[in-house]
């Protein structure tokens, strides 16, 4: 585990070093992604020029949901977002090379071409979260839940990125498919779950459990009550969801690797 982490850092460092050899292009890309991810919240802001609350949430509370969803996916995207490139790596025959090195395959795929500019989403989401968090009535319990939410949220999205990418062991061209669940899922989380039909809320809780990445713990922190009629203890169940996600993901990944067929030549 420690070795794997050290290898990740070593590989990622090289890519960061080589991307910083062209600082202008690095900063242009980073600022570009800052702007393009930030535009979402501008949309919400504009929406609130006509509304005072949406699904029972005011603008700052919406900012809280927004910031936490961006942080969850941002952390996962930074660390494992590259796993989506696995289909391409297979086609290029790069996987064989990675599999002949003494570092877990997942670490190598994710650290390969590590893109520091992806930090933009974290910076931007973090900024909105700080602004939104100002209005929260903080208690030690709420602060604890915040920390656990960010960790679990990262893990849940990590699981989505990796699990859905496993499909690419069979069909190399499925990155759009996983995008729908990862980035698509994260943009659903920018809105209160209560504005969606009940089936959607149930689906995002029990099937694709991303509601645990921000919605349930946010209810706890903001002192709000779920109007979907689901039990209260879900507010504190994020670690369970994260654990289940890890189990599912590692099973899927192992299954995928064992069924890897390499390429003919």
């Amino acid at each position: 585990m420690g070795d794997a982490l050290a290898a990740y850092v070593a590989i990622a460092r090289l890519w960061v070093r080589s991307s910083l050899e062209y600082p202008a292009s690095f900063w242009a890309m980073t600022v570009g992604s800052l702007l393009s991810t930030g535009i979402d919240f501008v949309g919400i802001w504009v929406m609130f020029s006509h509304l005072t609350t949406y699904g029972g949430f005011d603008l700052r509370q919406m900012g809280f949901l927004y910031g936490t969803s961006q942080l969850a996916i941002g952390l996962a995207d930074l660390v494992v977002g590259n796993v989506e490139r696995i289909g391409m790596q297979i086609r290029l025959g790069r996987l064989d090379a990675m599999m002949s090195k003494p570092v877990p395959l997942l670490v190598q795929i994710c650290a390969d071409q590590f893109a520091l500019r992806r930090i933009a989403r974290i910076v931007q989401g973090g900024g909105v979260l700080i602004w939104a968090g100002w209005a929260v009535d903080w208690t030690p319990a709420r602060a604890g839940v915040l920390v656990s939410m960010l960790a679990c949220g990262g893990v849940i999205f990590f699981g989505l990125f990796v699990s859905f990418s496993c499909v690419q062991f069979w069909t190399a061209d499925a990155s759009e498919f996983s995008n729908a669940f990862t980035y698509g899922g994260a943009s659903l989380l920018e809105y209160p779950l209560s504005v969606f039909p009940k089936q959607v809320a149930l689906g995002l809780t029990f099937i694709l459990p991303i509601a645990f990445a921000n919605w349930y713990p946010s209810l706890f922190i903001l002192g709000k009550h779920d109007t979907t009629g689901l039990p209260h203890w879900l507010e504190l169940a994020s670690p369970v969801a994260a654990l289940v996600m890890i189990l599912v993901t590692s099973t899927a990944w192992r299954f995928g690797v064992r069924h890897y067929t390499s390429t003919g030549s």
Partner: protein
Amino acid sequence: MSLIDVRDLARTFVVRRRNGALTRSRSEVRAVHDLTFSIGAGEMVGYIGPNGAGKSTTIKMLTGILVPSSGRLRVAELEPSRQRTELARRIGVVFGQRTTLWWDLPLRDSFELLQKIYRVDAARHRRNLEEYVELLDLGDLLDTPVRQLSLGQRMRGDITAALLHDPEILYLDEPTIGLDVISKGRLREFLRTLNAERGTTLMLTTHDLQDIEALCDRVIVIDHGTAVFDGPLGDLHHRGESRRTLVVDLVDEAPPIAVPGAETRKVEGPRQWLTFPAGASAAPIVAAVAASYDVADLSIQEPDIEDVIRQIYAGG
């Protein structure tokens, strides 16, 4: 206990083919089956066979990249597919067709990264790197990104990369593909030295039989997924019933030479080609020819391994 132990190994691939707008058929390709061999430490083994015979598939199973469909496989007492990362520290792999280096990084960075990944201690890494850079003449190329290297340069980089962690076994899948004669010669020399000085076990696939003649005491021939020959190179000739050729230049044109123990295959002016079994001695035949004809010159050609293998395929 041998270093590489393969017993009844098999690997099938499922291939789906589209044979109409909507219909798809599913078929199985037996890439490797009933394959059994073992290789001891320090051996240099040539693994040869025609295209699609299953050579690369075997190497990928030996490194743990592909999971066998059935059979038993042990390399350095590890099960490759389950203990792949552990095994990786003890082996080196070179795929002639593809680089295992980082495409966009200069060689120097790739090597530095390998040191960290394999956790080679700094002094040993420096010593190995210096030695291989010197032997493979890579000094001027260290700052060049891999994508800018020529095929032969890249191959030398790949071989260095595969050796920096002092592997016990080096697998080479078509290491000489696309190299010119001089580079091939240098590479063979390098591999021979590696085996002699460090005792590294080598297993190489190739379509260039000179690689085998230059390097390997032992050959395994694989065809349609299974071994059809395993033994010393010399025995391959007997097994294939190969024949040596005696080229006779007569002083004058003559009808086909008739001597016992040899067959005349071709006549071209004063030159005639006689063949005789590779296992037989040339001396009585030469004597018989010289006794009955006016001979200007004589030479003997060894059998071409390619023909030998073709005969094994034809006979087997």
